[in-house]
């Protein structure tokens, strides 16, 4: 044990990293995530200034109004966009009228039907007129209240069926209804018939417990949900007055086909600025409905933009938020940017490649100035760790730093991409996602062959789509065709389907196993329709008891647990393909990896992007959903398109990413961009992943590791079997490969990591065993100063600063001998945060 009394690592090497310490704390607290969605109506921030619009640019939403029954109504809103991109809700300032004979009446900000016909809603503001077509149909008919389309939405909107209340799996206080109304048929039975005499009273509808609880007239754990004089109360009461009818099975009400929220984007200036949003649903029968009173509103960043029950957004602190409206199985959102009221902002010039254009565009919207580019030394270290999972050697350092070529960064990336370590890193990443590890059902041999197959795919640069196709449609023995192990690692067919969605599409469908996904579009039908692709997997034991043969059995169905019906295979968000006589998995693989598939390329590109920048455009990378929007939608889409364009060769994509200024930015934030965590205004400081960190330590100390089943000197990245680990790897958050979640591999700092580096045998022993200092001093006859430089270059890809040099030399001089002093320094360097982090 070597704790040097005269050398305080905190005052020493770690003190050399002014930015890093701060970043650490900043990273730990980076819970608040900004999400954004650059909508089509994107205000190009060209100049900053006050309300200087000469000709008001305003838009009326919704773009068309359709009133389809006597009950129908539609709210509207007018949004003015200033020259500087800031939007204003001018509904109150606009003069509203209806053209010609009025088929409808304006009631505040609502349109109500009068007689059938067409008209135009006319908005006039400062001499400018905007018109919105209005169609009124069936104005004389007042359709009966539908349980599915009217009552359930009320229950959902007023929070009755949330997971914390009656939507919980076991309900609440003895009353259960489906979470966010995924099972209206069951809800109808439970409300009306489960305890036939309790919840509703058809003789005196007002005495129905359902209503009395909702208005808080009797004791209710959930308190008052709505008022007696509310439209919700009226709707439920009318339904009860009608005898609480169910929707007839042969005439089900139309389903909601889409939901839109208007405006698609708002840029609010100054705290307290407001914007009302209007939600419109479109039904299968062609009718529309104002959902502003029925949709559930939420904001993913309440600090910046709070949204209330009426769809009114109020600006808070500077930032970006995504306000969402959820109705039925649809979740839609609008981006809200909140800017300070008096910001002095000069948009910087955008340089670099297409990535930088899109990143720069977003930064301009947010009025953020990015940091400058990093140094060559920083770039060398950053790119080497990111691409090959190792540190640059001394030679590589010298060569790169002294290279005068202007495109040397590009050249370095190309050079690194050719190395087999690049393939190994990605093979490892996929091995994590595919949870490759030996277990009771997967033999070590199978796991080993499976991992080797994966590595081979990357080494041979097999396009990722082809690899995935090969994997999903695989049949054969788990030894002879190792990719079939995909179906052995997880034998549960539902989970297999979940894994495919999560790994290859970045979509988590798990929620939809038991109920419609509460924050995404996925319904139970989608879930079981997708799972049906994996219903016909056959497996039998091969001659070797460890080997199984996976095949397409051609038989077997997936049953929907609520309806009890067999589900036809249906692509997630796609059609029901013809699978007759085909291997369903092959049909799915073809669809999944097709260039036009909307999920595969983008989610893969996002994973690559996240690897290089530390945070995905959608974060987490395997949780892509409507309510977790990309921080830069355009970039997200573009990267996917590029991957398709490159025929799924993601080396090409890596080249683009590493060539971008966004990647090459300094990790030191400016006061202007220090709050930004999702928009790549400065590089993110990331802890080196466990395997690579161990490889780096072994590399700099010249002390090879030995892992089970691998020769001495093999690197941690090469470990095939997920169940092979050691204390260091486990402590530093190596993925245990229990699930396919990207979150399994962790780079979160823990106390035991720090203690292990400081006091554990690993680092010290490696320094001693590697004998590199002894070698340098004795064999190569280097001076202590030269050794010091080498140590810094090896570990940190830079030379010591003068201050460091002076202090460290003194420390070496004060130690018992030079070698021990240098070993102390080496130990201190390896314990520095600068070493452990990629910055």
């Amino acid at each position, binding site marked *: 044990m070597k704790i040097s009394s005269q050398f305080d690592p905190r005052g020493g090497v770690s003190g050399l990293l002014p930015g890093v310490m701060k970043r650490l704390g900043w990273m730990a607290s980076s819970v608040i995530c900004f999400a954004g969605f650059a909508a089509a109506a994107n205000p190009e921030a060209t100049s900053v200034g006050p309300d200087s619009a000469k000709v008001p640019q305003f838009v009326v939403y919704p773009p068309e109004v359709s009133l389809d029954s006597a009950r129908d109504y539609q709210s509207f809103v007018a949004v003015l966009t200033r020259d500087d991109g800031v939007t204003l809700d001018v509904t109150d300032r606009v003069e509203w009228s209806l053209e010609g004979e009025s088929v409808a009446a304006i009631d505040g900000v609502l349109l109500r039907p009068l007689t059938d016909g067409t008209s135009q809603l006319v908005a006039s503001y400062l001499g400018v007129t905007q018109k919105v077509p209005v169609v009124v149909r069936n104005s004389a008919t007042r359709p009966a209240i539908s349980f599915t389309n009217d009552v359930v939405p009320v229950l959902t909107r007023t929070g009755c069926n949330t997971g914390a209340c009656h939507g919980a799996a076991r309900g609440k206080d003895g009353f259960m209804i489906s979470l966010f109304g995924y099972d209206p048929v069951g809800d109808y039975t439970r409300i009306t018939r489960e305890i036939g*005499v*309790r919840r509703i009273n058809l*003789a005196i509808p007002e005495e129905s417990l359902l209503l009395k609880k909702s208005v808080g007239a009797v004791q209710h754990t959930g308190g008052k949900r709505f008022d007696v004089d509310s439209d919700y109360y009226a709707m439920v009461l009318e339904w009860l007055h009608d005898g609480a009818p169910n929707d007839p099975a042969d005439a089900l009400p139309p389903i909601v086909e889409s939901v839109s929220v208007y405006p698609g984007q708002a840029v609010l200036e100054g705290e307290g600025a407001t914007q009302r949003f209007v939600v419109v649903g479109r039904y299968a029968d062609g009718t529309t409905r104002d959902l502003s009173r029925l949709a559930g509103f939420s904001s993913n960043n309440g600090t910046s933009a709070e949204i209330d029950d009426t769809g009114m957004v109020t600006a808070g602190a500077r930032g970006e938020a995504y306000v969402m409206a959820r109705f039925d199985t649809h979740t839609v959102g609008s981006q809200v940017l909140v800017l300070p009221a008096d910001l002095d902002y000069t948009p910087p010039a955008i340089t670099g490649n297409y990535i930088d254009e899109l990143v720069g565009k977003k930064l301009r919207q947010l009025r953020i100035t990015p940091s400058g580019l990093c140094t060559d030394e920083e770039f060398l270290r950053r790119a080497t760790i990111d691409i090959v999972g190792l540190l640059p050697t001394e030679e590589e350092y010298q060569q790169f730093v002294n290279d005068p070529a202007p495109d040397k960064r590009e050249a370095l990336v190309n050079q690194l991409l050719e190395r087999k370590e690049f393939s190994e890193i990605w093979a490892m990443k996929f091995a994590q996602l595919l949870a490759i590890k030996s277990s009771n059902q997967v033999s070590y041999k199978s796991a080993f062959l499976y991992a080797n197959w994966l590595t081979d795919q990357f080494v041979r640069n097999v396009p990722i789509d082809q690899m995935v196709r090969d994997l999903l449609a695989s049949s054969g023995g788990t030894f002879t065709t190792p990719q079939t192990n995909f179906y052995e690692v997880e034998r549960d067919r539902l989970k297999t389907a979940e894994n495919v969605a999560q790994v290859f599409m970045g979509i988590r469908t798990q929620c939809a196993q038991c109920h419609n996904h509460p924050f995404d579009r996925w319904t139970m039908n989608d879930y079981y329709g997708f799972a049906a692709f994996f219903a016909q997997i056959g497996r039998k034991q091969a001659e070797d008891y460890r080997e199984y043969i996976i095949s397409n059995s051609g038989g077997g169905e997936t049953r929907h647990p609520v309806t009890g019906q067999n589900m036809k295979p249906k692509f997630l968000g796609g059609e029901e393909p013809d699978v007759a006589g085909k291997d369903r998995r092959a049909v799915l693989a073809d669809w999944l990896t097709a260039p036009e598939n909307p999920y595969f390329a983008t989610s893969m590109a996002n994973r690559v992007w996240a690897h290089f920048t530390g945070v995905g455009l959608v974060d987490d990378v395997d949780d892509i959903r409507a309510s977790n929007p990309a921080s830069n939608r355009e970039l997200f889409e573009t990267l996917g398109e590029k991957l398709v364009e490159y025929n799924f060769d993601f080396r090409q994509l890596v080249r683009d990413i590493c060539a971008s200024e966004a990647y090459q930015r300094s990790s030191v934030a400016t006061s202007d961009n220090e709050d930004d965590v999702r928009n790549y205004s400065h590089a993110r400081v990331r802890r080196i992943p466990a395997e690579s960190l161990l490889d780096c330590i072994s590399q700099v100390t010249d002390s090879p590791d030995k892992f089970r089943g691998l020769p001495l000197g093999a690197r941690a990245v090469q470990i095939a079997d997920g169940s092979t680990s050691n204390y260091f790897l486990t402590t530093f958050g190596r993925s245990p490969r229990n699930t396919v979640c990207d979150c399994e591999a962790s780079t979160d700092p823990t106390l035991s990591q720090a203690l292990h580096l400081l006091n554990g045998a690993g680092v010290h022993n490696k320094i001693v065993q590697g004998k590199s200092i002894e070698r340098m001093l004795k064999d190569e006859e280097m001076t202590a100063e030269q050794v010091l430089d080498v140590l810094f270059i090896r570990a940190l890809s830079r030379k010591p600063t003068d201050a460091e040099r002076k202090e460290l030399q003194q420390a070496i001089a004060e130690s018992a001998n030079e070698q021990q002093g240098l070993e102390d320094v080496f130990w201190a360097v390896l314990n520095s945060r600068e070493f452990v982090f990629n910055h």
Partner: protein
Amino acid sequence: MNFRFPCAFALIASINVGLVCGQEAAPADADTKITYEDHIKPIFRQHCLSCHHQGETKGGLALDTLQAVMTGGSSGEIVYDGDYEGSRLWQLIAHEDTPVMPPGQDKLPDDQIKLVAAWIDGGMLENSGSKVRKKKINNLAFSGSAGGRPEGPPPMPETLPQAVPVLTSRAAAIPAVAASPWAPLVAVSGQRQVALYHADTAELLGILPFPEGVPLSLRFSRDGGYLVVAGGEHSAHGIAAIYDIKTGERVIEVGDELDVAFDADVNDDLSLVALGGPQRMLRIYNTEDGERVFDIKKHTDWIFAVAFSPDGVLIASGDRSAGLVVWEAATGQQYLDLTDHKGAINDIAWRDDSNVFASASDDGTVKLWDVVSGRAIKSIAAHAGGVTGVAFDHEGRLVTAGKDRRVKLWNPAGDLIREFPVMEEAVLTVAISHDGTRVVAGDWNGAVLVSQSENPDAVESLAANPPPATDRLEKQLEKLASIQPEFEVAQKQAEELASRLTAMVQQHTTLVAQRDEKLAAAKAAEVAKAEAIQRAEELNAGVVEQSQASRDLFDRVVAARLGDLASTDGQTLTADREAELAELLTRIAQMRRERLALGVTAEAQQVELVRLQTEAEALAEPIRVAEAAVAEAQAAVEQFAGQHAAVVAKKESVERLVAQLRQAVEDAEGG
């Protein structure tokens, strides 16, 4: 005869047929024994033994020896001698209960399941040498008892309130109906009221107001004199109240729940009330002062059903999570904890003898429990989707209602007797009338139907939302007006009949008087005749005597005459004697004349007598005719009296109802 399984023999017979087809060896005579070795073990071998043998014993159960089969598995016995439907073995292989056996495979062929049933019924013989053991006395062998019947006429409503506390255009789901155990009286739960109807006429007899809310449970007291009503306002307040059904007076109310009371019952001597609801506490109250005697805390979910045994010794209570417990009423100590049900217990009913009770559950079964042995003696898969109500009649028959919209009647052995017409919605409650002739059921739609047990299609409907007193008053006034002519006709007819009777009686009386007069006259004639004869005879005797005297006198005259000549004096003497003789002779002649006259008189009297007698005899026929006429008139009067009285009673009852309704209307107007 084990009447619980009347089909067993037929079953065995049919199985024999099956065996003949399947195995040549088995003879088709009724004596063939179904034995473990010959018939059952091969089935087990084929389907069960791979998991249930003594090496493996999945679930603690082995089936490869009879001993092991009798011992059962870790969840208890699997076969009950003679009760295949109650045997878990049969329940599982017949897919009557879960987990179905064998798991993950097809159900056993029907003939094999029947064979197992027959084997259990046949006493579970081991081999062909085994003898049938004597069966124990069947718990379901129930002989009716009249326990609890009150002395005198069974109580019926007399002066019930008629006002409708809450008027609704339709009824809500019917939480409860009940039937008096001794009288044709049915109670129906409505909104803040309980409507009482005549079971046979479906006539509304009165309305018990229940201002606390919805009455969720109705139970008549053992003697039929009181009605226990439990309910209240959901999530707000719950009570139980007892009403005197004659007057409609609320005798007592107990409970102060924070939610409704789902059920309550009163014990046999009306001293204790048990009450349960969503508060999961079974509360026992004293009816003397309404104070709580004790609480029983055991149920883990809402208590749905509470019922005292008819002898008042036990209380059974069931909850929403299938908890079913029997308590000692006096102490509140747990007596039985019955865990067979898999769904909410919706209703509990006791059989008259207090030895058996039935529980109706959402798991679709009605289970009959023997409280002595503490086990289910019968599980009836009564209604798919859940059984909501169950009731016994005095003969031990059961009626059940279920969410399958059906009402069914079962014999005491639990065999289906008949189904009643399917209702429009889930049936929520059911009752059977005191004499078992009528079944009352209420459904989710608010319909309450009374069906005749023997003729299920004869259905009458009762309203849980009775029309208002004013409407009913109008109706009754109309009715009164409509029966007025009938009443008048009857009245007139009665009067006519009465006057005819009077006339007839008069006529009869006259005739009888005439006859009597004649008979009296005849009697007088007879007397007169007898007197004349008597006098004649006396005269005759006088004549004879006088004639003797005259002869003497003549002799002396002769003598005198002879002497006379000799003396003057003799002459005088002769003259005197001659005068005397003449006088005597005159007297004799007179007497003879008199005697002659008497003979005439006697004859005349005789004639008169005969005449009168003849006349009197002639009157006998008219008198008989008159008598018959009187009897006839009398009969007519008597015959009409019932009819008349009925009309009068009808009128009077309507008049009384009218008076009550008037009162109700006036009260309502005044209030």
